């Protein structure tokens, strides 16, 4: 009896020791593709968010330790809704990270209904700007990327006829709509567009169709492994036209693909050589931790996570409970935030505005050729 009592007493002591009375644990959610053909993005996103958590905890920004509850969205709406339901109803997070246009649109209604903040740092579909006050974007959306790419392709490179290969989902459709609007404005023509299902892996036939259009350039609007397969198969099947795409291509696997050489890609402009302390700390410690240069996706999810740290710390200082409503109110009350890339402000629709860089892939790296600012 006394032995059992001693064991139970020791167990109770351990539990009490592990739970300091004053500190509150902070858990936010994240819906990232951790399996399936888009899993490569999950690793990239987590690299940024995990580093931000390390920094927040190391700096004791919050009263208790912060952690992220990751759920596997597979980059698909249906598993994402299941994951979001769990995060909202079981884990009880006030703030969650989201990625991919289809996923973000699917979970936005749950975010709105439950007053949970959802922050997107990876999806670029233009309609992500209109998903309600609880849905924020820390990434410039693809309409801006197309508006930067088209004048460069048409006016600077003289590529007036563009063919489009787009994935048949909200992102692909949005990019198609944007190209149809922007091409005539720049004096070019969208000669043809070819939709592909999200699961397709064989594109030699599409390459033959693209060749038959006689286009000067091909715009690829896909993501994950599929976009790499499209680029490789275009080149393998005799398409020599300039290939252009959006920021979804800025992942290490894609940049390293030999067929990517010379491609034009767009993406948010981040000055990694900046001396501002937040950017410098991020760049130095990212390189030390992962032994590679950071990309815009790493920045976005670092920023999205750090944003929670800043807002939650401010709410704790005010003595306010950390809820989705309180986080939204605090963001609206805060004029600007010091994040990686500089001091930034949210637009009224909850989207951060960044300049867009047009880049060319050379030797496995994306080198900036021009930058376009939008106001």
């Amino acid at each position, binding site marked *: 009896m006394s032995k059992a009592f001693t064991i139970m007493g020791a167990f109770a002591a351990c539990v009490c020791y592990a739970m300091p009375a004053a500190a509150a644990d902070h858990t936010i959610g994240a819906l990232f593709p951790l399996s399936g053909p888009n*899993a490569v993005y999950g690793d990239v996103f987590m690299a940024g968010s995990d580093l931000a958590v390390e920094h927040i905890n190391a700096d004791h920004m919050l009263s208790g330790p912060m952690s992220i509850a990751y759920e596997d969205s597979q980059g698909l709406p249906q598993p994402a809704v299941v994951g979001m339901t769990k995060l909202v109803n079981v884990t009880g997070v006030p703030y969650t990270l989201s990625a991919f246009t289809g996923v973000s649109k699917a979970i936005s209604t749950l975010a709105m209904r439950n007053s949970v903040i959802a922050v997107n740092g990876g999806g670029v579909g233009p309609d992500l700007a209109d998903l309600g006050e609880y849905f924020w974007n820390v990434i410039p959306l693809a309409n801006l990327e197309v508006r930067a790419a088209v004048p460069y392709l048409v006016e600077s490179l003289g590529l007036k006829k563009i063919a489009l290969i787009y994935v*048949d989902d909200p992102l692909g459709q949005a990019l198609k709509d944007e190209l149809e609007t922007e091409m005539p404005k720049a004096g070019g023509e969208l000669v043809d567009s070819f939709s592909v299902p999200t699961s397709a892996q064989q594109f030699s*036939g599409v390459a033959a*169709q693209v060749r038959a259009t006689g286009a000067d350039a091909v715009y690829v609007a896909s993501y994950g492994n599929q976009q790499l397969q499209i680029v*490789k198969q275009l080149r393998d*099947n005799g398409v020599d036209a300039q290939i252009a795409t959006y920021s979804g291509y800025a992942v290490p696997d*894609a940049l390293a693909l030999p067929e990517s050489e010379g491609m034009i890609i767009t993406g948010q402009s981040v000055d990694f050589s900046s001396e501002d302390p937040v950017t410098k700390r991020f760049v130095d410690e990212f390189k030390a931790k992962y032994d590679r240069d950071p990309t815009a996706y790493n920045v976005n999810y670092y920023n999205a996570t750090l944003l929670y740290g800043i807002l939650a710390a401010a709410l704790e200082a005010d003595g306010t409970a950390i809820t989705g409503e309180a986080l939204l109110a605090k963001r609206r009350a805060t004029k600007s935030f010091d994040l990686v890339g500089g001091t930034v402000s949210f637009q009224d629709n909850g989207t951060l505005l960044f300049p867009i860089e047009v880049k060319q892939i050379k030797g496995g790296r994306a080198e900036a050729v021009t930058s376009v600012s939008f106001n």
Partner: protein
Amino acid sequence: MLAIQLAITGLQTGALYALTAVGFSLIFGSTRIFHFAHGATFVIAAYLFYWVYGTGWGLVPGVLAATLGAVFFGLVLDRLVYVPIQRHEGSFFTVFVASFGVGIAVQNVIGMIFGRGFTSVSTPLSRSAEIIPGVYVSPLAWIAMLCTALLLGGLHFFLRRTHTGAALRALADDPELVRTFGLNPRRIAATAFVVGSALVVPAAIITSATTGLNPTIGHHVMLISLAATIVGGIGSIPGTMLAGLLLGLAESLALLVVDSQWTEAVTFAILFAFIVIRPSGLLGRVVAH
């Protein structure tokens, strides 16, 4: 010109479909095991080739490693998973679920080892050259078609002209009768796994250079194999081969009339049409129950 180009592309695709589907059909036809992990065999062969060839060992060691890996996986799966299940209760559904589970496990293990992203074998053989104005064909397309013709011709010879081939055909017809002739059905089934698994190797290697690889590619392989087996006629090797070619051609030529997003639907429309109009498949035998 576009039609000719799409026909050639379709033949290349169809040749690879035929190889993978015939392997599945041989295993299923002989053993009645729904070897869903056939897609995993494809993935293992492709990644082994990618790894060995990519580390500079060269083509022949790469092909050998892929073949050994595929055959070993097929045999081990038969011995350690299918045989014990069949010994205890032998439910078709249990075998299918076990095979499905192994397929998912292999996909994840490959993802852990090689990463979940896109990889491909870089070779100038995948680059197309213009053979007539507007028509591009890569050396790998010719290799794919030649490999398919040789291997399936060899398989036909093996099944028709050798004792082991005859035993395989007999196993498909009546396993009990095979036993009365003093043959071991388990050993013959193992032969089916060896040959069926080895047949995916050329397709896996060529795919690693043309379409590229990711750990989930096995699902598509399995889907096409299943469709070709049904369209060709379950148990009919020539039928499955023809169905593989037909599906590849249809998928490619469909681009002349529909958007590329509907090409997969064309495959399954053909499958559905065969199920409704000719359930025994292209060259399958009608069985009365």
